[in-house]
Structure formats: structure tokens, C-alpha cells
């Protein structure tokens, strides 16, 4: 499913200029410098040989913390003076992220950089002055070269991928580069602002995870690392120093994999008749895996003869299945039909599709007094996912699709094309308005803790989803101790607090996580009422020996949250346990 998001994001990126402008900033509130506001000061140094020169002209930007889907505005901005000092005045009390804007530089000691430098969480109250918010920067390195394809033509507008050599997740461990990381019309690229280090410089899609995306986008670039390696062992490591420039890092892409076409028909399992207008998708099956990994689909549907078709597939194992994509799609589901492409087109596949079950019901908000909550109900993003009731045969692949419930303004919904099994509901906290949680799922009046049992083609019409809504805030102070004494988290460590409901329907997406600031403060906002578990956790930045970073065993504490208002919490984090390297 990640594939789809990639495709959509890729599409969105084409529109970037048009689009992103629109979530531009709202009017900064004009606030007089009084006791009602706070001040933040600090200094930016680095760049010199001893790393301690003041850096003038560096932008400092303060943005509200917490993820708001729409508003992205700077609460305050400043620029460092000749002495490297900056001052952010008139800051209203609140939670913020503090960034530096210094293109060409990288946070000192960083292993990776995405251009913003490191963001720092700051919780500040009215009348406070927070000093010594200092940053040390290093000059970024440069890697530049040209990418040609196997025929000697420039590879244009493709993104370079920087990997750490030996990273076990080398596929996912894209270091990224600040700013320009794309080839131009000559195939030339120039990555700058890079942290000093050793890199593999690569381009192209990964074999398995990239195949689906590549097929859907009609791209066929074999992952190749400098100079012409398709395997990491053959790739040459590029070492760049702080402020250094490595030129001539030219890549010759390996010839594209030969691709094939797959086609077949979708037939009603009962009648044998072709089924038209079905949306279908396909996914890659990792070697030895029983799951469909990356998956995707495009706008095509089966035609009147029930035919489906995919092009551009490199050899590999895949599965095709029906995707319940639209509200008014035909009410069918299918199993995943695995197939393997070797060295020829594959035609004549037959996917048996079956009449789906239909769930109807209503989502309602429990006891919420806030009228605004009801107006937002239709925007709550709920999903239903059906888990097969019986254990599957060894060779059966779970499709694993989930369908989004489209809520009417009164909370009613219906969803069709469901397979038999246990229908489980989740609330997607990322896309929903803030403050909602899914408390209970009921059928009739009875709670269905494990989900709603649905039979083949069954029509269930009495589903009730009970939601909670609240605007409560948890304000916390975290005390770090070691052997009973006040202490500090390790160098390069970052403290996070996550919050999870202990009652109601479990859904990881409802989790909220925030970074604890330098003074041990944390704030979690827009919480629905209920019992929560707070968990504090230290994550230590990657180092060359622990490229995924390290973590320290967490501490936990329960907290009861009302519908509105504030709760104050103190957490004690004992660091006596040793950090453990994170393993993939």
C-alpha cells in the first residue's frame, strides 16, 4: 500500500509548486513584547576549522509543534547577526519546533541531513526567556557526477539515493541529501550539504519493493550504485569530508530488466460469468514470504469481458486481487491469485471473484458536549479490515486490503465488497480531525471486542461505532535519573513520550508521540477522554557502529484524561539500564 502513496505523492510532487503554496502560512499573530510572551535566544557556530566560528546570516525558524494537517506557519523568525547570536521575541506560550535554515551546512556530528538541520522541541510559557538554544554546524560536503543509461544517454530528472555502506536496511536507509538530489537534463547531479561520511551513491528502483511502483509508473531503472554496481559488494564507497567535494562520481546504469505483460479474467466463482468494472491491484511477494508486500493499482477496471491487464513487470513473484476502491463498485471480493513471471508474458490468468458482504451502520460520538465535534464527524477517517475467520491453507495469501468508511454527515456508512471473516475497525488518527478516538464496536447493542463476524455475502445493517471526542491536554515534566540521582540522557539522545489508549479499540494510528524538550517538558494536545498509557523512551541517534541508533528500555505510567482541560504529569526515567542497539 505504500506503493500507492508513493505514486500519489509522486503525482502530488508534480503539482508541488501549485499545491504547497496553499498551505502556506496564516497571519502571524501580532503580539506585543510583554509578559504575555516569551523570548528565545541562542547562537549558531561552526564552519571554521575549529568548528567554533560564529555563523552570521543563518535563518532561525520557530513553528508550532504537533501535526496540524493544514496550518503550517512560522510563529517567529530571526537571522543570526555577525556574532552568530539570534533572538526570537514575542513568542506566544506554546509548543514549538526550532529549526535552522542554513543551506550548505549540516548539524555537526550528524549522520544524515534533510536540509532543515535538526529540529528541536521547545515548550515555553508566557514571560519566560529561554537562552542558550545553540547550534553547531559543519560545512556540508559535495558529491557530484553524471548518470548515464546503458545506451550512453543521460538519465534525466531521477532522484539519487545515498546509502550508508553496510547498513542492513540499505534499501530503506536512504540518507538523502539536502536540496538538489535530482539529475538535470544532462544527467548531472550535485548533492551538497552532506554530513561528512562514507556513502554509496545509487539510482534506480530496488528489485522487489520498487517493481510494483516502477511497473505502474512505467519506469524501469535497475538500481545501480557508483560506478556500475547492481550488488552492494561491487559498489565503490565515496568518502566525503566536511566541506569537501568529490567530483566525477559518474554512474552507468545497468541495462533495464526485461519486463512482461500479465493478463487474465475475473470470473464470478458461482456463475463463471465475467465481472466488469472491478478495480484490481497487484503486489510483489517477497522471496520465501507469505505476504504481499508493496502493492498498487491504477485507474483501470475490468472490461465487459472481465479482462484485466498489467504491463511492465520484471520477472518475479506477484499476486493479483480485487481492490474495493470505490463506494459504488460492484460488490465483489477475491482471494489473491499468486503468479510468477519468468521470461515470457503471462496470459489467461483466472481470478475467481465472489459476492462480498455489506456492512451498514452508524458512527456516533459518546457524551461529547462540544458541538464542533458533531460537525467534524464526517471527516473522521475510519477503516475496516477483514481478518479471515479460519486459518488459511498454507499456500493461501491474505490480500490484506482495507476499505475506508465514508461517513455521511449523520455518521451513517455502508461498505461493500468484504470477504468473510472478522471485520475490524480502526480510526486513522493521521487523517482524522484531532481529538477523536474509537471506543467500541457494537452489533445490535452488543460489544464486539474481536470484530464483527461476517459470513459470505452477508448483509449486516446494525453496526454501531462509538467514538470519543475531547480537547484535553496532558502537560508533563520528565525527570531523568541514574541510580536515584538527577542525570542527563546520553549525548545524541532524544527523549520521546508516546501515549496510547488502554481501553477501547486498539489502533496504532491513534498513538500520539512528542519529543521531550531540553528542560524535560512535554505537551500532548487534543486528546479524547479515557485511560491512557504514557511511555517515555530514549532514542540515540545513529552512529557508525549503530546505524539505526540505540534505545533505552522505556518507562510507563497510566494517566486518566478528561474530556477537556489539562492534566499535569510527572514521569521519572531511570537510565540505569544500558542503551541497546536497535536491530532491524
Amino acid at each position: 500500500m505504500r506503493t500507492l502513496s508513493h505514486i500519489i505523492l509522486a503525482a502530488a510532487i508534480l503539482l508541488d509548486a501549485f499545491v504547497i503554496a496553499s498551505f502556506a502560512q496564516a497571519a502571524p499573530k501580532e503580539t506585543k513584547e510583554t509578559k504575555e510572551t516569551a523570548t528565545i535566544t541562542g547562537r549558531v557556530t561552526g564552519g571554521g576549522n575549529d568548528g567554533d566560528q560564529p555563523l552570521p546570516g543563518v535563518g532561525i525558524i520557530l513553528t508550532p509543534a504537533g501535526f496540524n494537517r493544514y496550518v503550517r506557519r512560522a510563529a517567529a523568525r530571526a537571522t543570526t547577526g555577525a556574532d552568530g547570536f539570534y533572538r526570537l521575541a514575542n513568542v506566544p506560550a506554546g509548543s514549538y519546533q526550532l529549526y535552522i535554515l542554513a543551506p550548505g551546512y549540516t548539524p555537526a556530528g550528524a549522520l544524515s541531513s534533510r536540509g532543515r538541520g535538526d529540529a528541536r522541541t521547545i515548550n515555553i510559557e508566557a514571560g519566560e526567556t529561554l537562552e542558550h538554544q545553540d547550534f553547531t554546524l559543519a560545512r556540508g560536503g559535495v558529491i557530484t557526477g553524471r548518470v548515464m543509461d546503458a545506451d550512453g544517454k543521460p538519465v534525466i530528472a531521477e532522484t539519487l539515493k545515498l546509502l550508508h555502506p553496510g547498513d542492513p536496511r540499505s534499501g530503506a536507509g536512504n540518507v538523502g541529501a539536502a536540496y538538489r538530489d535530482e539529475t538535470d537534463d544532462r544527467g548531472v547531479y550535485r548533492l551538497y550539504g552532506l554530513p561528512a561520511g562514507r556513502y554509496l551513491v545509487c539510482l534506480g528502483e530496488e528489485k522487489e519493493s520498487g517493481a510494483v511502483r516502477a511497473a505502474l509508473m512505467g519506469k524501469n531503472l535497475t538500481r545501480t550504485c557508483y560506478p556500475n554496481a547492481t550488488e552492494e559488494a561491487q559498489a565503490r564507497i565515496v568518502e566525503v569530508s566536511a566541506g569537501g567535494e568529490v567530483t566525477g562520481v559518474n554512474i552507468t546504469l545497468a541495462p533495464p530488466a526485461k519486463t512482461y505483460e500479465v493478463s487474465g479474467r475475473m470470473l464470478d466463482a458461482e456463475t463463471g460469468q465475467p465481472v466488469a468494472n472491478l478495480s484490481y491491484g497487484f503486489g510483489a511477494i517477497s522471496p520465501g514470504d507469505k505476504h504481499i508486500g508493496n502493492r498498487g493499482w491504477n485507474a483501470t477496471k475490468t472490461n465487459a469481458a472481465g479482462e484485466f491487464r498489467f504491463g511492465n513487470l520484471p520477472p518475479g513473484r506477484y499476486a493479483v486481487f480485487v481492490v474495493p476502491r470505490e463506494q459504488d463498485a460492484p460488490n465483489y471480493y477475491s482471494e489473491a491469485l499468486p503468479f510468477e513471471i519468468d521470461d515470457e508474458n503471462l496470459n489467461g490468468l483466472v481470478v475467481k471473484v465472489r459476492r462480498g458482504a455489506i456492512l451498514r451502520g452508524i458512527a456516533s460520538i459518546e457524551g461529547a458536549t462540544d458541538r464542533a465535534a458533531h460537525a467534524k464527524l464526517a471527516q473522521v477517517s475510519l477503516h475496516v479490515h477483514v481478518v479471515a475467520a479460519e486459518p488459511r491453507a498454507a499456500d493461501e495469501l491474505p490480500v490484506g486490503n482495507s476499505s475506508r468508511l465514508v461517513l455521511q454527515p449523520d455518521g451513517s456508512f455502508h461498505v461493500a465488497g468484504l470477504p468473510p471473516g472478522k471485520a475490524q475497525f480502526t480510526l486513522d488518527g493521521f487523517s482524522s480531525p484531532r481529538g477523536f478516538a474509537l471506543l467500541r464496536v457494537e452489533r445490535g447493542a452488543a460489544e464486539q471486542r474481536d470484530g464483527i463476524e461476517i459470513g459470505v455475502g452477508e448483509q449486516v445493517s446494525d453496526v454501531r461505532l462509538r467514538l470519543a471526542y475531547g480537547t484535553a491536554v496532558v502537560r508533563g515534566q520528565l525527570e531523568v535519573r541514574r541510580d536515584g540521582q538527577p542525570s542527563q540522557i546520553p549525548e545524541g539522545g532524544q527523549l520521546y513520550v508516546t501515549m496510547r489508549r488502554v481501553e477501547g479499540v486498539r489502533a496504532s494510528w491513534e498513538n500520539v508521540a512528542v519529543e521531550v524538550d531540553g528542560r524535560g517538558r512535554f505537551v500532548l494536545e487534543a486528546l479524547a477522554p479515557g485511560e491512557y498509557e504514557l511511555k517515555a523512551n530514549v532514542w540515540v541517534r545513529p552512529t557508525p557502529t549503530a546505524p539505526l541508533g540505540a534505545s533505552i528500555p522505556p518507562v510507563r505510567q497510566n494517566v486518566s484524561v478528561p474530556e477537556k482541560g489539562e492534566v499535569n504529569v510527572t514521569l521519572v526515567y531511570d537510565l540505569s539500564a544500558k542503551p541497546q542497539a536497535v536491530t532491524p
Partner: protein
Amino acid sequence: MNAARRLRPVSGRAARVRPTWRGALWSPLVLLAVLLLAPIASTAQTRAEVATDESRTGGAITGRVVGEDGQPLANARVSASRMGGAAGAVAAQSDGEGKFTLANLTFGAYLVNAFAPGYMLETDPSEHPSARVYHHVGDSVTLRMIKGGVITGTVTGAGGEPVVGVFIEATRVRYADGRTVREGASGRIWQPRQTDDRGVYRIYGLRPGAYIIRAGGRTSFGTFTPYDLNVPTYYPSTTRDAATEVAVPAGAEMTGIDIRYRGEAGRAVSGVISGALPADYPASGTVVIALKHVSSAAPEQYVSFLPGNSGFAFDGVADGDYDLLARLNSSRADLAAASPPRRVSVRGRDVTGITLALAPLGSVSGQLRFDPPAALDDKLACPPARAPRAAESVISARRVDAGHAADPGSAFFPAASETVPDDKGEFHLRGLKAGHYQLLVRLPAADFYVRAVTLANAPANNAPPAPAAPGKTARPAPAIGDPARLGFTLQTGERLSGLNLHVAAGAAGVRGRIAAANGGAGASAAGVALRVHLVPAEREQADNLLRYAESRVAADGAFAFAHISPGRYWLLARPAPNAPDAPDNSPLPLAWEADARARLRREAEAARAPLALAPCQRIADFVLPHPSR
């Protein structure tokens, strides 16, 4: 981009508060992508799924991709997007011979596009929006691609130091033939580039024409940069009004376009939106506010107005005069709204407290009806190969009143509002401002023509449509222009319904050319742009505007008429009414005005170029004398 994505895993699995695909699917980026496209997409929202039982097989659009030299272009990505269909396109890749097949397409009207890095389609859809070409199942298409031009240079600060990571944008201000770009957003190159660590930038994939280049300012890319509160610096080191144009010949590389960055602080322009927003806002739409310099064709900045914002604000605005306009883009016809444009002057300080009041927009709905086959002449020489489908048609409304060009709000609206009828032929054109409109109907095949236009439940109105007075929208009577003339007038927020378009088979067509003026070369050699008019010869059709048509005359003298009702006509060549550099898509057709129509008929009769078109007849080589002779 957002806080959720910056969070790193705390340990193993615990706190992966990462956006899932669902998150990404509805991320604001995508949401806004969709909403901002609404001027096009929402008007084309009508669902037009072919019913399962009658869909029979759809089919394929095939064709070839070729380069400037006509040689096949391999590995180009070709896509077909269905008008009014679900989002997403069917894509294919051209093979070694440049051939492609877009298979498994349902019946509909498709826009076919081709992508190859550094290349672009030779026909620029933004240049003549009314000349968009739609394709249908069974079509074979040749897509010609040209190599884009390049502008490259270095951006330095006052001390000659490189300006690193500043966004550079190119805006096309002139077409290759020197005409000014006037149409909305067509000049903007939506592909900002940033300077590298040496201050070097390189913009590629540019259509031939003249560009102005800007560095910095509030990026149209949401990323914060150190330069986004600055006034943009235009090449070479100046303001927008004084910017030097960079002419880019086809495929050329313009080097040394160096910019000395000024880094002057800009001003803020801020305000609020008034007017009723729907209760479920923003689920039902988004208000987008645009800021446009009075002298530019396209807005320089967009922001959206969303709940939780205290208002809207633009930053990095240079001194000057601007128009501001808010528009609610929504898929729901009853919600479409826009504010009147508001002029503001920025003079050395911030402008605050502007209120933009949303007012509802109008709509037109009706039905496209194919005459039943029984009514077709059995002996029709060109019986349709298959039953036509309403969903293969595209209906658009183009504002043509004299006030349109003078209305600064026009720059914020697409040139035409488009829609696709559903399988019953029902259509809705939405988001229309008050004004006089021309209805354009694109039919599935050359076999069809619009036979009649009727307005259900309305008295016939044979008075010629009066063009709207410039600057005035309030008029005493609901002056619905005679629909038989493919035109209508809308008051603010008016919803016109029951407009029926009757389509018949057996259409005729004629292609031809203007005989050269003094024995010399083609029509343009005379130095006057020409237009050919098709005028009905039958007296009883004298006031039937469906029998009139106009054709631009190409540089080589060629003209063409298609989708013509059988009948007797005269052909008449006249000088085009346009100023030479005006885009050829705004004037009211001459025949729409009663006096001009009568004059046309007189001149046409005198010109003695009669033409009789039988059903299905296609004349390919009509030669019309040059009017100067």
C-alpha cells in the same frame, strides 16, 4: 514537512507514528492537489460510468510518439486521462518504433499526454485551451515531442558570494511568435529549481518563448528557506516591472543568466474570508486565495484558508498594486463560490485587515441527447460505427462577454469550465461567474452535429443575445440568451437548468484553403490574419446560429469545419477581428450579434462561394479566393 514525519522510532516498533498509506492518501498535499485542481476537476466531476450490462468491451487508443525530426521516440510514457472519470490515468510506454497502446479503456473522452524527460508535447494545451484535443476509444494518435530549452546561471549576493538554496522560477511572458501570454496560469513553469552550493541554477524543459526569471520570495514551494520573506529579485537584479526578458528559442540553452540577489524585505498582505462556509468545511472544499500583480497574467502566490487559521497572509510582497481573490473550490455545485477581486496597494508597509466576501457562483445543467437511431435516415452514407455514448462528449462554457477581459477576476478562473455528461447524457457546468457564455460541445466522432438546443420550461426567446455591459452584472431581466445560439447569460449565483442539446448523426464537413493573395504564398502573406465564416444560404436558417461557424486560417491558408449540419451554405473569408497579439479564444462569434449576422449573410451572398453539404459529405479541397482579390 510535518511533525509526524520527523518523529523517529523510539524503539523497535513502539512509536512508529508514521503516516501509513492512508495518511499519505489524504495528506494535505494530496488533498490540496485535488482541491486546487478543482477549477478543472470539479466541473468535470460528473460520474459517467458505463453501466455494466451495456458496456460491451471498451477498447484502446493507439499511436506513435515521434521527435521533432519525425523519428520514433522510444520509452516515452504515454497516458490517457479520462475526462470526468475517476482520478488516475492509464499509462503505457512507447516501444522501439515509438508505438504505444493504451488498452482496456472504457468509453469516454480522453486527454492523451506524453512524457519524456527534457521533452514536451509540441502542441501546448495551455496556449489554446479551446483547441484541446480529446481522443476516443479506437483513435490512432501521433504525438510529436520537442526538446525543451534551458536557462542557466548563477545567483550571487551583494558581495559576490553564492546564494545557496534559493528557489528560482521562470514565467513565460511571450509565446514564440511574440504574442503576450495572457491566459491565467499558462505562463508559469511549475517546476521551481534551487541554486546549488555554488549559487548555480539550471531550469530545463522550457517551451520556446520569452521568460522572466525570479529568485527568492515566498516560495511557491512550501519549504521554508532563508529567502522566503524577501521580495523576489528578477533577472538581472530588479523588480518584476523592470525584469529583462530572456528569449529561449526552441531547444536552446541560454547560459549566463546571472542574478545579483537583492534580498530586500517584503511586506505582508493579510486578511480574512467572510461569507458562509459550509458546516463540514474543509471536507467539502477549500478556499484558495490568490494574489496577482496587476501587470501579470498569473497569480504570484496562493494560500488556502482553513479552520484554525486566524486568516490568510502573503509574505515577501514587493511594493505595487495587486488583485486578491478568494475562491471556494468544491465538488458540490451548491457550494461553489468566489469573492469579487479586491485591489490593494502595497507601499512600504504591510497591508492588513482585508476582507474577501464569498458569493455563490452559477451553474448550468441539462442533457445531451442523441437522436434515436430510428430517426436516422436508413440510407445514411455514414451510419455510426457503434452507438455513441454521451460520456464520450465534453461540454464546456466559455465566457465571452466584453466585461470578461476587463474583469481582473478572470485571471483566477480557468479559460473554460468543462464537464462530461453521465451515461444518461445529463451534465452540470459549475463554478460560473455572472456573464455571457458560449457553450462548446465536443462530440465523440465527426459523424455527429448539434441539431438543436432547447431550454425546457422556458418560453422561446428569439431576441439576439445582448452582450453584458462591461463592469455591470446586475441587469433588469433574467436575460437567458437564446439557447438555440449555444449561448447563455448568467446572473451572480444563478442556476440554469433544462438545457437540452440534441445531437444527430450524418454530420458533414469541409476542409480547404485560401487561394494566395497576389499569386504569392498563403493567407498570412497579405499581413492580415484571416477567418473563414460558414453562413447558411437557406433563408429559414438565417437566424439559426447552429448553422454558423468560424474557422481560424492557418499560416498556410488552411481552414476546416467539422460537425456541420447538412444544408446549403456560403463560405466567406474576412479579416479576423482580433488584435494581432490577442489570444484567439475570447471574441464573441460574429454571428451572435444580429446586425453583424445580417452583414455576414449579405457579404457571403455577394462573395459567391456556395457550398451544398449532403449528409455525411466531407469536402477536402475547397479553394476560397483571397478576400483582397
